[in-house]
């Protein structure tokens, strides 16, 4: 599904190049649940952003379902964001002006899903995550854990093939974190491909594989479970 070959990413700092990713190659099959681990500043988020097509590598090739991402137009990327990729962020990143219901609904608007179908899908999602009573609240009226639940709901309502989560539990207490991890685990069992960035050994064990990134290199990649 995802095939990264010799990916390099650096930032220019004056005349020097500050390397973030050096020669990263990685293959991920459909149905995997990969946890990327590593120290702070190792380039985990950068890697995830590249996989999520929010950022581009300076060199290397990236194939998504055997199509060359590095040759995609802006339009094509937007198309993929609408239909194939969902994001969950550490800081939740809900839209402040929208209610829980509307936040979850937004991706469907961009997918041009009809009104009644939208209603059904959002209702389903609210039901599944036990948020029906909270659907008219605004993000600031929710706890962090609840906001992240909305974040996950919003990420998956468009039925993406790939879910990318950058430290989804980083801002949460353990118990709230566990709840989110259970959610991801359930999604994985339903067949979704998931890549998460995490600092926690405990959370990484929900996945099927752990990729350890140090100083822009993949140090090891081990199958678990």
């Amino acid at each position, binding site marked *: 599904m995802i095939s990264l070959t010799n990916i390099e990413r650096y930032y220019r700092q004056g005349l020097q190049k500050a390397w973030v990713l050096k020669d990263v190659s990685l293959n991920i099959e459909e149905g995997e649940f990969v946890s990327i681990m590593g120290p702070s500043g190792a380039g985990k*988020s950068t890697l995830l*952003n590249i996989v*999520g097509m*929010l*950022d581009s590598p300076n060199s290397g090739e990236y194939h998504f379902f055997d199509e060359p991402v590095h040759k995609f137009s*802006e*339009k094509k990327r*937007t*198309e993929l*964001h*609408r*239909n194939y990729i969902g*994001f969950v*962020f*550490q*800081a939740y*990143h*809900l*839209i*402040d*002006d*929208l209610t829980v219901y*509307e936040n979850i609904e*937004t*991706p469907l*608007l*961009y*997918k*041009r899903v009809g009104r009644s179908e939208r209603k059904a899908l959002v209702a389903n999602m609210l039901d599944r995550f036990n948020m029906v009573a909270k659907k008219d609240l605004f993000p600031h009226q929710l706890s962090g854990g609840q906001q992240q639940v909305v974040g996950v709901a*919003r990420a998956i309502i*468009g039925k993406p093939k790939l879910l990318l989560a950058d430290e989804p539990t980083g801002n949460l207490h353990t118990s709230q974190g566990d709840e989110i991890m259970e959610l991801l685990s359930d999604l994985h069992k339903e067949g979704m491909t998931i890549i998460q960035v995490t600092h926690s050994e405990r959370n990484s064990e929900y996945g099927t594989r752990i990729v350890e990134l140090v100083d822009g290199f993949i140090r090891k990649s081990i199958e678990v479970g």
Partner: protein
Amino acid sequence: MLRNYFKIAWRNLLRNRSYSIINILGLTAGLACFMLIMLYVQDEVGYDSFHEKGDQIYRVGLERIYPGRTRHYAIIPHSYGAAMDEEYAEVEAACRLLYFPNNNTTLQIGEQLYEEEYIMWADSNFFDFFSIPLLLGDPSTCLTEPNQVILTESIAKRYFGDVNPIGKTIRVPQGQNNDLTVSGVCADVPVNSHLKFNILSSSASLPFLNQSNFIGFSAYTYLMLNSNADPLALEAKFDDLVIKHASGPALRQFGMSLEEYMEAGNGYRYFLQPLEGIYLDSNLESEIKPPGSRQRVNFFLLIAILIIGIAAINFMNLATARSAGRAREVGIRKTLGSTRNQIATQFLVEAVIISLSAGILAWGLNYLLLDQFNQLTGKSFEYSSLMTGKYILLLVGAAVATGLLSGIYPAFALSSFKPVQVLRGKFMSTSKGAGLRNALVVFQFGISVFLIISTILIHRQWVFTQNKSLGFDKESLVNLQGAGGLTAQQAETFKKQLRELPGVIAVSGCNSQPGDQYFGMSFIRPGANESTTGSGLIISDEYIECMKMEIVEGRSFSEKFQDSLSILINEAAVSEMGLDNPIGTTVVSPAQFLNPAEGDQLVYTIIGVVRDFHFQSLHHVISPLFLIHNRRSFNNGVDNMITLRLEASATTSTLAQIETMWNRYQPDTPFRYAFMDQDWAQLYEKEMTTRRVSSLFSLIAILIACLGLLALAAFTAERKTKEIGIRKVLGATIPNIIGMLSKDFLKLVIIGIVIASPVAWWVMDQWLQDFAYRIEISWGIFALAAVIAIAIAFTTVSFQSLRAAMANPIQSLRAE
């Protein structure tokens, strides 16, 4: 999707309430001013646009060249119209109008007397030319016979009530016993026409029109050209026509051939003015109505656009300044699959919602302020003018255009945010648009300074015109109009009795007052080959003293002398005639009324020189003036107008006594009086409107600019809360902080001043060129404008800075 855009826009407006209010307030004020000014401009530009054949009709104007100066007349010799019609194939028809200003006529209907000022005489094809509907009467015969008159609807109503006036008789008690017959009723002449009359009489009623005249100017002459005629090509042929027709009369009038006369620096150049441009573009002598001014219309238009521009800039500045706050939202939406266009659309929808709300409020504001605006401009707009399709279309168009124009940059800037940049952990603050924002603040304050400078200059010029010594004392002078019905003897005793009234200082007679039209005339020294043309004024003994004019040489008219062959001239005439020793110089004039019907021309002697006084507004240079004694006037000692100087303490009872006296002498003529100073102020009505409008709208423009600056300052202070806190903990004083926050803004304001000053200098120098007598533009004015602008900006900014500087640092630091 659109619904969604609206919903989000609405929420955003509510959530950022103060921001929305500032934007909407600014745009409302901007749009309201814009629309009011546009009402005014449309009205001014629309003059005479209602004539169906307007694009084929031209008026013939005359550029009269005299040695050393040139004057432009709206009236031309009355025989040219027919000559042009005959001579040129492209001229389909010619129509003449005649109007004699200050020539009130008393009309009698039954026993009732009416005083009528606006009587015009027209050729019989008037209604073919001008689309003023003839409501009653036969268009083919209503202006063909002598003494036919057409009344306007409201005059007909006033004179005859609901009775059909056709065929009714109107008597003219003071005339040559010619009764007038009503032959038609036409609609009232629209206000937005350069024409103005209440009664239209047939040109056949004026016998002098039967005599050929190619020299003396009297008739407004309009030509109807065929639709493919080239007016410029036609104009070029007029010179030959002048030679063909004016040569003979010139020889008789000036005692020399037309060629010699032209070689001596004289000339007649006839030109064409498109009908629709007459009101705005033509400012000739003897216009029917005070003309408008294209320059003023453009100036107002400029102010209108600048005001809206300033409001739009506020919008852009606040939107980009706040962009950091919305960057995250943009990033999220992009990861959810939104395209850049969708995001830009979202912001544009927000902008248009704001500007449309402002448009609706502006409409309400126009409704509330229409009366005041009418007072300000002297127009009379009805509420219905706020409902016309044109108005509403313009308002909606202006609102949407402002919204789009001011929203497009922020939309473009905000939608360009990359998710990776703005979603990294906590969002970083961005300096996006800061450069543009600064440039726009410079621009705004440049405009403000420009407006301040022009307002000061307009005001100064106004004060100058009001205070400039006119060469006579216009205070406490009263003119009684319509004294022409008295015989010379009656007038003498009437004046003597007036003089005895308490509160009356002096009484004299004249044919016209400063500010009104003086007739044109010329004199020539016997033997000289150049006659000097100027204006003429007929006055009685004591007029010079009564007006407090100054005699610089010689003496003024006096009953102690037989002055019927004496004249006074002004200093301008002395220099134009090149007289070293004017007193005692003898001159002759071709003017008919100064000479016997048969025999040689009479010789006049200059007995005194009057200090130049302004008999026209300060737009005009003082030109040669000849003052002739009323014993030598066509009225033989009769005064058209009686001028009285009252004591400054004179009261209405003095006027009441004068009225009583008047009614005893002239029971048939209504008592009409006017104060000289008020009439004189009328000459500057245009400037007064310009001054009022420009100062008011400049003030509004500056206020809107300040509103924007206030918001920007608040925004900067908010963004720097933490920095301010840290600095205070480190020991910064409140003035330090205010200085830090204000410095950047003041820099921008000063750049604005530097850029705007030369522009203002150039524009206002152009404006002042319109005045023959004008103030100098001094550097002090720019300094004053700069001080005002800086003071305003500093007050605005420091208001916010002070709040930020006074805040407790512990609070602001804990918030992080």
